[in-house]
């Protein structure tokens, strides 16, 4: 079965410290991968997406970066966190080959709640 793992679930980091959030997908190959951020009480903002190893598209210029070192691994990083980086981060994947239309869609991880202090 296809699953998505995201960790850690909760993180408290001081301003200026580095960040690394990891997302891995199991049970599929060559997925499209996505990082979203949700500020408190607000919608989901697309940060990065990747259609393959080493291929990263940035949607919003900011303090964050993303990497895809392996087919099913997607990493969100920062060299120096800002207070404004606080939020709820969600990883998601989507099949590249659509297959049965009834199965088409995105699957989300359980999220990381990041608080920068």
């Amino acid at each position, binding site marked *: 079965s296809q699953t998505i793992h995201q960790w850690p679930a909760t993180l408290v980091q001081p301003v200026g410290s580095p960040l690394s959030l990891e997302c891995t997908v199991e049970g599929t190959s060559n997925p499209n991968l*996505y990082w979203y951020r949700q500020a408190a009480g607000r919608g989901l903002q697309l940060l990065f997406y990747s259609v393959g190893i080493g291929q990263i598209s940035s949607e919003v210029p900011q303090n964050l970066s993303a990497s895809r070192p392996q087919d099913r691994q997607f990493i969100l990083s920062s060299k120096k966190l800002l207070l404004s980086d606080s939020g709820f981060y969600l990883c998601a994947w989507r099949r590249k080959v659509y297959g049965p239309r009834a199965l088409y869609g995105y699957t989300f991880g359980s999220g990381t709640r990041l608080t920068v202090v």
Partner: protein
Amino acid sequence: AQTVTQSQPEMSVQEAETVTLSCTYDTSENNYYLFWYKQPPSRQMILVIRQEAYKQQNATENRFSVNFQKAAKSFSLKISDSQLGDTAMYFCAFDTDKLIFGTGTRLQVFP
């Protein structure tokens, strides 16, 4: 650029009643998907319903149905026989090769 607008920040409905959440979008694409996602307090994203743009028939999933008006770029969600467990944030989303979300509607179901 594609945009999704949810004009109702908050809605409330009494248990067993019907409520409709609004969503409009802007795109020049002709082939795309539209989704409604539910986010309960746990913040897990739960797929409620999906609609393919090429299908004229409105999608239905049990108590949830949509009114898809492609020419008007409108995609509203109707929840019938509302239940307390429907209390959550609801997000409309537009998809081609990436999912773009609206700002959400917070729905409260009262007993």
